[in-house]
């Protein structure tokens, strides 16, 4: 045993310490690089597009001339799409979450749906586009319309809302339900008057996150037939449409530098909208995170 003295172990301690410090530096470097790339991305976009971001850009239709091109119809298209998609996903998603948490119990259907939802969340968005093309555009005869695009995006973000709403409903303590049942309330009365009001902030947060996902999607909209050039205001749900990401994609693919600036300006608008939505979600979450009294 005397052979294994502490000195035998301390050998290489200096090297171990040096390696530890080098590794620490390497890990830190990785984080700094990741954050640095985000910074470079944002700075580059602002440098490219800031000059074009003004009221005229927001209110002009697209144009053959890059310096006159604006995002009016694309922005409106995006807003309509998010309203349609949000409505569809909200109704179906919250309904599904209530069913799964309050009605289905440990029924096998619950497990099937849970597995299904997590698989749906991993399906590439472009595949949803093909679903929309075949079902909404063709079979249901909606054509390449706002409705078809909105429904497609609605199904795309459905898993996000279901999962968020489930979490929110789960977080409502069961004592609340027991209290209501104890007074003879029916299941739906309990849900409507007690569970949903308490779960609402969480559901709303999920809703905002889902909308911000929908507003940035490009690929499925291309597949369901969004137009790159819409020199009119969409006037009905059956109207053909463009969307902000579609407009950005189109301008990016043009050779002229002027369109690239317009694309960068469009991206800035898109990111500002996303930032505002996410900030709203964060504020909402923080505001309601303190547990309710009682």
């Amino acid at each position, binding site marked *: 045993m005397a052979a294994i003295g502490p000195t035998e*172990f301390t050998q290489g301690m200096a090297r*171990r310490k040096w390696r*530890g410090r080098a*590794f620490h530096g390497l*890990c*830190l470097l*990785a*984080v700094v*690089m*990741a*954050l640095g*790339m*985000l910074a*470079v*991305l944002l700075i580059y*976009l602002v440098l*490219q597009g800031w000059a074009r971001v003004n009221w005229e850009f927001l209110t002009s239709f697209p144009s053959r001339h890059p310096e006159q091109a604006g995002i009016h119809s694309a922005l409106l298209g995006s807003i309509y799409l998010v309203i349609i998609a949000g409505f569809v996903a909200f109704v*179906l*998603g*919250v*309904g*599904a979450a*209530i*069913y*799964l948490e309050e*009605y289905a119990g440990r029924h096998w*259907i619950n497990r*099937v*749906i849970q597995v*299904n939802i*997590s698989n*749906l969340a*991993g*399906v*590439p968005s*472009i*595949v*949803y*586009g*093909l679903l929309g093309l*075949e079902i909404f555009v063709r079979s249901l005869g909606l054509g390449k319309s706002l409705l078809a695009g909105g429904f497609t995006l609605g199904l795309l973000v459905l*898993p996000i809302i279901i999962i968020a709403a489930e979490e929110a409903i789960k977080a409502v303590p069961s004592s609340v339900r027991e209290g209501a049942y104890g007074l003879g309330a*029916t*299941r*739906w009365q309990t849900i409507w008057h007690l569970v949903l009001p308490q779960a609402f902030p969480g559901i709303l947060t999920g809703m905002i996150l889902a909308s911000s996902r929908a*507003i*940035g999607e*490009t*690929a499925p909209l*291309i*597949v369901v037939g969004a137009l790159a050039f819409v020199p009119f205001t969409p006037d009905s749900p059956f109207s053909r449409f463009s969307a902000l*990401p579609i407009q*950005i*994609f189109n301008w*990016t693919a043009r050779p002229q530098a002027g369109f*690239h600036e317009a694309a*960068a300006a469009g*991206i800035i608008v898109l*990111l500002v909208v*996303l930032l505002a939505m996410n900030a709203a979600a964060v504020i909402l979450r923080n505001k309601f995170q303190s547990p309710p009294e009682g």
Partner: protein
Amino acid sequence: MVELAGRPPASSEGYRRSHDWRRRLPERIIGFSLLLCASASILTTVGIVSVLIFEAAHFFGQVSIFEYLGGTRWTPLFASKQFGVLALLAGTILTAGGSMVVALPLGVLSAIYLSEYAHDGVRRVCKPILEVLAGIPTVVYGYFALLFVTPLIRGISENVAVFNGISASIVMGIMILPMVSSLSEDAMRAVPRSLREGAYALGSTKLEVSTRVVIPAALSGIVASFILAASRAIGETMIVTIAAGQNPTFTLNPFIPIETMTAYIVQVSQGDTPTGTLEYQTIFAVALSLFVITLGMNSLSQFFVRRFREVYQ
């Protein structure tokens, strides 16, 4: 409550009446409607699968599956049509693989930093900022790849084409980085403190604790994050459509124009391909292949997550 309990029996008669159909029927209808909502997600899956299989079946009625899976040339839009999906698959593997080369080391090292080294405050600030990277629309990354990264690379070497796999890979790597870092970090933080303490008590440095105890213990969770990120990269569309080109090429050369499976679907969708034609059906065949690959990878990732949970929960 006391008052309620003390009510005369007569008025409790009045209560009971509302308990029968007038109260139960709406309750039934609501329950049924909610079930319909829940089945919407199932219907979505059924819809996706049947649409893909239906159209792809037409395609495979005309093109042999062996030609499709074995061929290396993909020219459905030309006069002499060839349907070798390997040309598209190569593009997909090249860009997805390239993005993993960027995202894996950066993601895992970032995860180690956030989980083992960073103070709580630093972690709370850095993690959400990193996750912003995952929230940026992919069309924005496409713009960045084509108009910032590509000129940068072409500045180094003139031989790199305008459309190429490498800038798409790099930018896609940045996009999936937070998936690797966040999910890996979650897995590492789930490793019990007692294991770290056990290792520290034996005189380990932080490097040794991280690489010899924490990472092996969190390995299945980390692997799950890799697979999920890779699957995300395979299904990614806009970056590769904008920056990697539309030339299906059976190659792993990152400096020449290629085309991925997703970019091909966009290419056909942008054109005016009539319904029912073979060209139209090709995108469903490609999408079906894409769906099978990503579904397989997601299931694999869930398998690893389950294994991880079994050990620590």
